C-alpha cells in the first residue's frame, strides 16, 4: 500500500475523486427515483446502466496504472487507460443530460406552476424530490468536469520502467 501511495501521482487522486463522485451521483439518481415525491418511479435504465459503467470503469482507472507488465502490454494498458477515461467522461455527460431531460418538466411544474395550484404541487415530498434531482445534476456535472480533467494527468508520479 505504501508503495502504491508513493507511486501515485495527481492523476490517481483525481481518478479516485471521479470514482467516488460518480458513485455518489449514481446513488443520488437511484434515490431520486425511489424516494417518495414527484420523481418516484422515474428511473431510466439507460442512465443507471451508463452510470454503473462509469463507476466500474473509473474503478478500473484506479487499478490499471499499478499493474506492471512487460512491453508492449504495459503501453497498451496506458492507451486503454486513456480511452477508459474518455469513455467515463462521455458516459457521465450522457447520464447528466438524460437525467436533466427527464426532470426538467417536473421541475418546471413544481417551481413554476400557477399560483392556484402551486400550494398543491409544492408538497414536502415533491420539494425534496426536486432538490434531490438538482443535487444530482450538480454532482453529475462536477463528476463530468473532473473526469475530463483527469484525462490530462498521468496517474503515476513517474513513468514505470520502460
Amino acid at each position, binding site marked *: 500500500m505504501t508503495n502504491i501511495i508513493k507511486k501515485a501521482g495527481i492523476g490517481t487522486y483525481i481518478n479516485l475523486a471521479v470514482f467516488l463522485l460518480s458513485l455518489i451521483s449514481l446513488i443520488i439518481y437511484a434515490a431520486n427515483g425511489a424516494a417518495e415525491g414527484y420523481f418516484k418511479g422515474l428511473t431510466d435504465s439507460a442512465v443507471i446502466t451508463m452510470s454503473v459503467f462509469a463507476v466500474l470503469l473509473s474503478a478500473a482507472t484506479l487499478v490499471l496504472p499499478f499493474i506492471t507488465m512487460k512491453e508492449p502490454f504495459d503501453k497498451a494498458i496506458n492507451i486503454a487507460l486513456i480511452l477508459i477515461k474518455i469513455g467515463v*467522461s*462521455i458516459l457521465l455527460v450522457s447520464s447528466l443530460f438524460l437525467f436533466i431531460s427527464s426532470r426538467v418538466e417536473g421541475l418546471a411544474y413544481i417551481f413554476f406552476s400557477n399560483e392556484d395550484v402551486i400550494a398543491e404541487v409544492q408538497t414536502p415530498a415533491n420539494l425534496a424530490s426536486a432538490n434531490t434531482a438538482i443535487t444530482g445534476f450538480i454532482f453529475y456535472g462536477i463528476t463530468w468536469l473532473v473526469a475530463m480533467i483527469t484525462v490530462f494527468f498521468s496517474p503515476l508520479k513517474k513513468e514505470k520502467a520502460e
Partner: protein
Amino acid sequence: MNKKLLGNALAGTSSILLSLAMIGSIGYSIADKWRSSVDDALGTTSWITKTDDPKYVSDYKTGKELMDAAKALSVREGAEGTVIMKNNDNVFPLQKNKKVALFGAASYHSYYSKAGNTDTVDLPSALKKAGFNINEDLEDIYLNHILAEYTETSGGWGGPKKTYVWDPNFSAGDYTTFKVNELAPSRFTEEGLLKNPIAADWEDKAKSDIAIVTFARPGGEGTTYKPGSALDTNGNPTGKNPLALSDDELAVVDTAKRLCGKVVVLLNTSCTIEVGPLVKGEHAVDGIAYIGIPNDYQFTGIVQALDGTVNPTGALADTYAFDSTSSPAMMNFGGDYYSDYTLVNEGYDDPRWPGAEIGNNVTGSFGGSASYSGGYYIVEAEGIYTGYNYYETRYYDSIANPTYKANSSKGVTQGESGWKYEDEVAYPFGYGLSYIDYEQKITNITVEDKANGNITATIAVTNKGDKDGKFLASLYVQTPYTDYDRQYKVEKSAIQFLSSEKVDVKAGQTENIQITVPTKYMASYDYTHAKTYIMDGGTYYFTTGNGSHDAVNNVLKAQKKLEGEAPMVKTWFKSGATDTTTYAVSESGAKITNTSDNIDLNYYLPGTVTYLSRQDWDATYPVNYNTVNNGKGVSLAASPKKDEWINELRNNQYTIKKDGTVENYDGKAGPKFNAESVGYDQQSNINDEYWDDLVNAIPANEAIGAVAHGGSQSDTLTNIENPVVKQNDGPNGFNGKTLSTNNGENAEEDIYFVDPESEEGKFKACINSQTLLGSAFSPKLAYDWGRLLGNTGLWIKNYQIWGAALNYHRSPYNGRNTEYPSEDPMLCNILGREITKGTREMGIISGPKHIGFNDQEHDRSGICVYMHEQKMRETDLRGFQGAVEEGEALGLMVAFNRLGAINASHHVGFLQDIVRHEWNFQGLISTDMMNNKYYFNPESAIMASVTQMADFAGNNSNINLGKDKVHDATWGYLSIDATKNDPALVDAAREAMKYQLYAFANSAVLNISTERVVPYWETAIKAIEYTTLGLGCVTLGGYFCVAVLSFKKKEI
C-alpha cells in the same frame, strides 16, 4: 514538447470535444422533443403550412375506380368471411356440374344490410353467374308462388314497402315474440294457401344433386330477441327459442334431404342459430356454412368460397352453442324494473323542470313519454365469462382443475348430468374449415414486458395441399391463473384470442408471418386489491389452432393434462410474483386505477351480487338479479346509499354552480380556425396555446349550446370562423349517399366531381358487412375497408362518420349484433384499430360506436347495466381501446344505456378518467340519439367531456337566451343567467369545443399539409455536434499517433 505531455493534452482535449459532441447529440434530442417551445422562444419555425397542397387526397382518380374498388372489396369480404363449419364427404366445394336446388325463402330473399344499389347480387344470381345449374323449377316455386304474396304500403322510412306473407321475418322485434315464418314444404300444395297454387308434382321437379338451404335470423337497431319467444307460422307459441330452428325449417331440411343427394345449410345471421339438429340426428346435413349478413355484392364472394374458387379462410366470430341461452350472460338479459323504481320520480318536483310530471318507466328504443328512464336494470354477473371465455374456460377447468367444480349441473342445458363441453358447444369461436390441408406453427415468440411493449409471434404456415391458397393463422394465449387471482377475484379466461393474419402460400411451401399485438392486452384488471392492471408471474402458453377449442386443447397437451403432442405451443415465463406496477401506467403515462366502483350493484347494495368466478363454477354461477326478493327485484330503498342512488337515476350527475364568476363569458376575439392559423404545432399538440386562445373566443353560451345541440352537424360559432361539419352514419359506410352527393357546382373545379347520371354517380358505397368483416378475421381487410371508407368520404365531401361499430356480442340475443363483429372484444379491438387507421389516413373522422355496453337494444335508452370494473375494462371497452390507442381515432359515440345508475354519457370515471386520461383520447365524443331530455342533460355530459349530443338539431348552438330572444325548448333551464356563474362548466364546454375543433384540424375538414423546415438553432446544434465530434476524433487520432510513435521508438 514532451511526448507524454503532448499525448495527455491531446487525449484531454479529445475528451472535452467528444463530451461536447455528446452534449450536442443529446441536446438535439431534447430540443427536438421541445421543438415548439424552442421555436416559440427563439421566434423560429420548424414547420410551414401548405394550404394549396391538401394532405388528404383520394387513392382513386375517378369515381368509377372507387366504385369498382368498393365492389371488389365487398366480394373479397364475402369470400374471406364465409365460414365452412361442416363438410362431410367433401360436399364443399360445391361442384358446378351438379344441379343445385335452393330451398328456404331466405335463399331468395336473404337478410341483407343493403346499400341499395340497383345491381345487388343475391344468392341465386351469384350462383348462376358462377356457372351453377340452378333448379329453376324450385326457384319459380319460391319466387312466383310462395314469395309472390305480399301487400304494398307507401310512405314511411325508405318509401314504398312490400310486406311478404311468406318472407323470412325480417324484424327481431323489441324483446317480444318472434315468428319463424318458413313455409313447410308439406303445405306447398295446401288448398287455398297461396293465390298462385303450386302444382302437386313439384317434388319431382325439385329433385337435384345438391340442395342449398338458407335460414335467416334478422336483427338491427332497436331489436332484441327474447328467449323462448318463438311463434310458428300461425302465430302460436312453440316454446322454442327464436334462434332455434323451427319445426317448419327442419321440415324444409328433411324435404331437401329426401329430394337431393346432398344438403348444405347456409346461416344468414349475426345471432347464432342453434344448429344442433343439423349436426347430428335425423335432420343432420352434409355441410353447414356461415354467410353472415351480406351487403349488395358479398354473395359473389360467398359463392367463390362455397365453390372453391378461393380457399375458405373465414372463422366463426361467435361460439355456436347447442342452446343459444346456455351462456351465463343469459341469466341476466333483457332486464326488469327495480321493485320500487317509482321512488325516483314520485313526489319529486325536479327543479330543472318545475311542475313537470316525469315518470321513471321504460321509454322504448326510440324515445317516448316524459321519463327519467331509469327504472330498468340488469346485472352482468357473468363478469368476463362471455362467449368462448366461458365455454373454453369451463372446459379447461373440467379437465385441469377438478376442484373448481366445472362439471356442476349449473348452466347445463343438454341432458341431466353435469356440464360437458361437447354437449353444450357445437362449433367454437375461431373455427373454420379449409379445403386445403395446412399447418400453422409458432416458430418464435418475443414478449416485451412493459406497458407499451408488444408480443411478436412468428408463425410458419405450411400449405400441405397441391393447390396454392390463402390461409388463416390465429394467435391465442393462456395466462396463469394464480393464488393471487383467486384471492383477489381476478378472473382469467383459460384461452384468449390475441390476433390473426392471413397469408398466401403456394402448394407445398411454407410462409412465415408475424403477428404483433400489444402486451398490455395480456394484463388483467384487479378491481379489488391492486385496483389496476396486474400481470401474474408464471408460464404463458402461446398457441395457434383452428379456433379457441383447438387452442385450449393445445395448451392442455403442452401441460400434459391431455394426451398428445402440441408442437404449436410456445411458452414465455414471467418471473417473480404478481406484477402490480408495470401495467399500472397507460401508454400516455396516466396512472391506471379504479374509476367506476359505482357501476357495481354491490356499491349500492353491498353483498348482493356474486360474480361468476372460475374457482367455483357451482357456487358462483349467476342467478337472475331481476327475480331476487321473491321475484320483485332489488330495492332502491334498501340501499344505505339510497339518496345518492336515486339522485343518479334522476340523471343529475352535475348541478350547475351559482356562486362562481366567469370572467370571459362572452368570449374574447382571437385567432380563427383556418389554414392560416393551424400548422404543425397546432395539429400535433392540443395543448398548444392556440387552442386555448381559439376556444376562449367562443361565447360561453354558444359553447354550451354547441354541445347540447351537437347532433347531425357541428355549429358555426361566433368569433372563430369554424366550418360546419356534417355527421353521417354508419358501420357499413355513408348510408344512402351516392358518389355524386355533394358534387361541387363546377365540375371543372371539383376534383371529386362524379356525373350524377353515370353508374358511379348513382353508386352507394356503403357496402360493408360488419358480420363478414368479423368472420374474415383479417386486420388487413379491415384496414382496406377503412381506407375505402375514407376515400368515399373525400369523394362525397363528408368528413365525419359514425362507423366501425365495435360493441362485442355479449349474447346472441342482441338484434344489433348485425352491426358488431364478434363475441370477442379482442377481435373487435384489432378490427376497429385497422378500420380507424384506414379512415384516419384519408382524413376522415370515423367514430366507433357505441362504447359502453350497448349490448342489448331493449330499453337501451336508460337501462342500468351493473358489473364489476374488470368486466368493464376487459370486455366492451377493450373492443374500442385499439381504435383509440393504436388507431388514434378522432371520434367516439357513447352507448345509450347507463353504466351502473349513470347515463354512460354522463359517467366521468368512464369518459374522463379512462377514455380521455388513460387512453389519451383527444377527439370528439358524441352521445347516442338524444331522444329524451330527462335522460340526457347537457351539463352532466359536458362535465364528462362529451363534445356533442346527438339531437339532430342542425346549425343550432343555442341555449335559452331569455324572454323575447331564442328560447331553447329542450333544456329551458339552461340559460345565460343559469350558467354565467359556473366557470367549471364554461371551461369544460370550451374544452369540448377544443376537442371537436382539434379533430377537424387533423382531418380532411381543414385538409392542410405541413412541411418540415430546418430552423437556425437546429443547424447550429448539428454544426456543434458534428464539428466537435470531428475535432474530437482528430485529437484522439493525434493521441494515438503520439502514443504509437513513442511505443515504436522504444521498441527500437
